[in-house]
């Protein structure tokens, strides 16, 4: 299975975006950072014991699923929407959701538009090879409006076109819009319209059929979420792993029982995964949270206890 391959290789092949600030982008030295990248690191830490043993494979909207299907990557952590047909027809398995998103529109303030319903006749830039172009068609159709699509290949070009005024509106997932807007010289002159025209649950995906590997990725993600819920952070994890009163935490960190063996890993797998970049909340805050230039609020992505949708199944 994939697990053995990865162990034999000593390296995790992780499919990421070619460059989306905050989610996955190489820094000036070519080191990859971001919210999606953190998933790769966590899985690598869990499986291989070393968060740096990841080979990042930049994939475009066009090549990502093939890269996964053909085995070029072991896991795809590239802001991809979980949809029915992708899960079934494309033979992928989405193992969870790491970011609840929705498609929105960004326009210039001086356009004087305050709702997406006023975009009749507008020119809209969309990134090809994504669900966005289908959502966009559906949205305008439902509202009986016409529009002019301008297809672009990458986010960088979308920005360029939008900033140059080649399109009235730029549409993609709201997280992406926020990230893009954050990088503008004048973010205050652009607004993200309130309509969310689609549900975009983004999550890591693995190949269909290798359930063991799917479980590992799924529960690594769950471990990060659960860690936040139980207050396990990278700061206190060594402390806590010595043993706590909370049996859930003990099981999670391997102090009690041997959950790791059930997926073919050792006891400490989750501990390492959490140590790699902190728990979900820490990752969020460090990469796309309100303190970062991207400045996304937790919103739907808060813990269920905080009114969000994050809800890790119990570790037992």
């Amino acid at each position: 299975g994939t697990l053995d391959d990865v162990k034999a290789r000593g390296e995790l092949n992780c499919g990421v975006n070619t460059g989306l600030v905050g989610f996955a982008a190489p820094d000036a030295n070519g080191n990859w950072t971001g919210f999606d990248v953190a998933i790769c690191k966590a899985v690598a830490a869990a499986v291989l014991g070393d968060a740096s043993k990841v080979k990042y494979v930049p994939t475009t909207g066009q090549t990502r699923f093939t890269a996964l299907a053909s085995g070029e990557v072991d896991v795809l952590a590239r802001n991809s929407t979980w949809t029915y047909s992708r899960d079934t027809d494309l033979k992928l398995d989405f193992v969870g959701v790491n970011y609840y998103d929705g498609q929105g529109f960004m326009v210039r303030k001086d356009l004087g538009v305050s709702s997406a319903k006023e975009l009749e006749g507008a020119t809209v830039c969309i990134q090809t090879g994504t669900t966005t172009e289908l959502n966009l068609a559906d949205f305008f159709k439902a509202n009986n409006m016409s529009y002019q699509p301008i297809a672009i290949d990458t986010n960088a070009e979308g920005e360029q076109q939008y900033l140059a005024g080649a399109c009235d509106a730029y549409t993609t997932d709201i997280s992406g819009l926020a990230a893009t807007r954050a990088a503008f010289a004048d973010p205050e002159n652009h607004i993200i319209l309130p309509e969310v025209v689609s549900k975009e649950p983004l999550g890591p995906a693995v190949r269909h059929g290798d359930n063991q590997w799917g479980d590992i990725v799924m529960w690594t993600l769950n471990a990060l979420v659960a860690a936040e819920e139980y207050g396990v952070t990278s700061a206190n994890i060594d402390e806590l792993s010595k043993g706590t009163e909370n049996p859930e935490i003990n099981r999670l960190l391997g102090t009690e029982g041997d959950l790791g063996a059930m997926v073919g890993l050792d006891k400490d797998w989750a501990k390492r995964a959490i140590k790699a970049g902190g728990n979900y909340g820490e990752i969020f805050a460090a990469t796309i949270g309100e303190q970062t230039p991207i400045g996304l609020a937790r919103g739907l992505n808060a813990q269920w206890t905080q009114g969000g949708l994050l809800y890790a199944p119990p570790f037992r």
Partner: protein
Amino acid sequence: MVTVSDAPEPGFRLSQLIYDTRYRSLTIQVVVFMLFVASTAWLVDNTVRNLSAMGKDFNFGFLWNRAGYDIGQMLIPYSNDSTHARAMLVGLLNTLLVSALGCIAATIIGVFVGVLRLSKNWLVGRLMTVYVEVFRNVPLLLWILIVYAIFTEVMPAPNAYRIDPATGEAAMSALLFDSIAPTNRYTAIPSIRFDRPLGSLDLGWITLSGTFLGFVAAVAAGVWANSVVRRRAVAVQNATGVRPTTWWKSVLLLTVPAVVVLVATGFHLNLPTLKGFNFTGGTNVSNSLVVLWLALTLYTGAFIAEIVRAGILAVSRGQTEAAYALGLRPGRTMSLVILPQALRVIVPPLISQFLNLTKNSSLAIAVGYMDLRGTLGGITLNQTGRELEAILLMMLIYLAISLIISGLMNIYNNSVKLKER
């Protein structure tokens, strides 16, 4: 004298398969054929096994499903409810459109530059050399990106044409009597309208407008009449030696029928006007098309210029001198002696440049122009996950285009080949 007696005819020996020229090539071909079949079988077997491992099949049925996406630039009606096959057709037509426009423009530029490079004018010669070298030695993708950047950065947004209520003036005004408005997203040009259209002819796949057919028929009639006039002129020249002037007849014959049809159908231009976000009323030619077309044209034009130059240089000076010595004027020398010979040299590489241009148009990906690769090989592939089918189909279509064009070229080449001993 020693006579050599006939050696007894030996029977067939196995070594003859290798050492007998008659069988040797057969042997080799059989071996190669078996290797070929084996490797093909190996590839097919791998593919079948890989497909079944992924739980996929090889099936073109997806082409008849709803596409679900929109296309910015199209020549035939298409909406997101159309099938993938139709999206593919739209893409193919877009490929052919930009290729055809590119070939025409690149030829014009190439001929101009090629001739100017030969001119005795030092400055112009140098300028043309710089143009050719700069365009030939830098990747096409860079030119596409640069032209794209020029269009998005330098051209005004449609908004700039809006009359500012405060001042009563617009930042920009359209060119040519308000008819053409280049913007950073499209170039708005007048659209063609008819007050009394001639109905239309529905062919199922595409609908042909009757007006268009009428117009084509009128032009064809004019061309035919013109050829009759020219033939008559040649006959007169053959009989009397003097060629009657025909250029004004030609001009009339070529224009009048078309104009008549246009007037009869109530032709007029609809000027683009700014309404809402965008220009409406006219035709908005998307910048992706314009950019791709310009970049392909300038890039290929540089290559064609070299071909034209080489073609003219290939006709030896002696030909010109012989024509001059016979008393032919430079113009006649060009049309009767130099061009017919230069064309033989020029046309084959010219056609292969056309092929290159067509293939290079697949770089439309860089500007989001929805050509064959953008539809079939792009969104359709990505939405359906049928990469094997989509890419094979796309390659076959490109291959068919190439083969058709080069087949035509071979016919031409054979028809003009110089007769030799």
